[in-house]
């Protein structure tokens, strides 16, 4: 039996695509003065692994997305450092920018963006 409708994850290129994207995406995020202070006290290696899990999910790949964990992980950033929509928007901008750099077709970028967007309320603890 063949699958005539490859999943979003398959269309994007699976894990290899996530690896390529994570590298570009995380460098963009850490270089952006609007948002890189949120990462000042994080272990860069552990954080890169989290970024990979996040991108895998946004790419429609295998994941165990847990809204409660996402809230907990960002709660102190919201309370102490004022994490808000503008910062979330900046990250979304880097996500689209990364995919554009990788020549991903716009209709797939839109699908990834929609999945990432669905985490906004958890990230911002609303």
């Amino acid at each position, binding site marked *: 039996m063949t699958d005539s409708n490859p999943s979003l994850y398959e269309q994007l290129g699976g894990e290899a695509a*996530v690896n390529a994207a994570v*590298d570009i995406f995380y*460098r963009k995020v*850490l*270089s952006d003065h609007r948002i890189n202070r949120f990462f000042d006290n994080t*272990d*860069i*290696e552990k954080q*890169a*692994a*989290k970024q*990979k*899990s996040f991108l*895998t999910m946004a790419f429609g*790949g*295998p*994941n*165990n997305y847990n809204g409660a*964990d996402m809230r907990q992980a960002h709660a102190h950033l919201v309370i102490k450092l004022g994490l808000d929509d503008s910062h979330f928007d900046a990250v979304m901008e880097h996500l689209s920018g990364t995919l554009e750099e990788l020549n991903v077709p716009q209709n797939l970028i839109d699908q990834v963006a929609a999945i990432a967007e669905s985490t906004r309320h958890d990230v911002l603890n609303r």
Partner: protein
Amino acid sequence: MLLHKITLEDRQVVCQNGESVLDALLREQIDIPHACREGACQSCMIRSLDGSPPIAAQKGLKDVLRHQDHFLACLCYPQQDMHISLTPPADFFTEASVIAKERLNAETLLLTLQSKEALDYYAGQFVNLRRADGLTRSYSIANNRIHTHKLTFHIRRLAGGRFSEWAHQELNIGDTISVSDPQGLCYYLPNQPEQSMLLIGTGSGLAPLAGIISEALHHGHAGDIHLFHGSREVDGLYWIEEMQQLAGQYPNFHYTPCVSKGDAPAGFGAGRANDVAISTLPSLKGWRVYLCGHPDMVNQTKRQAYLHGAQLQDIYADAFHVASSTLD
């Protein structure tokens, strides 16, 4: 039958056919950190105690972690019975005696120990040194692995540092001290002889780096090796002439001493070692990076190196956390 037994301390779990080690442990209510279950987050990393785990379970891990039989429980489908550990190995100690004590500078001591048993270490690893009353501190091994019984350490005297003060003042040639098994993942493996290497150390962070450089040169490492050793003032550095000589001897070894306070003498970098290094070598794509010394320097430089092109897998770091008050 494809059932394999997983032994963890005094517990045994049977891994069913097609079941990952992570799922088997969780099924038996063994609490193990985990998140993505697909090899991305690496939070379920554990270690095999009886040889190499399946290669597929080591996907994405740093070479030194693979070398020490770490693997991801979520990706591991056992091919045989396994003995695993969730925690770092317990310290085993062997006895050693002091065979030399020299001054490297006003505050740093070069201590040489001769161990009773041969120690299997890699240049750049550290051991725990334990005094008779139990007081224990971690120190990096400062030599390469050619010497199996002889270990050297750079012990910096710290304000209020009980161990370093004792080692400087009271520890004498002929005295014995306990030495743990070597530990740590900031070390050299001769698997990429062409790769360029950047090493940045502050203060006695030179110790593991000197061991790594000596090991790399001994293996005929062909890529360029750049060392930046920093301190606030020239007095805080040591082995300046030795490193300059080594640079004269090996055309691929480059050495830059750095001072962050006041004017830098000719041939010295002016500024913090990490800043001097990054401005000298702005493109680190494909490089291997070793960082040792003050935790703030190590953390900051990890990020700098990554943003200048180094892969995280190629960044090896050893942050010197100290028990006493201050450290530059």
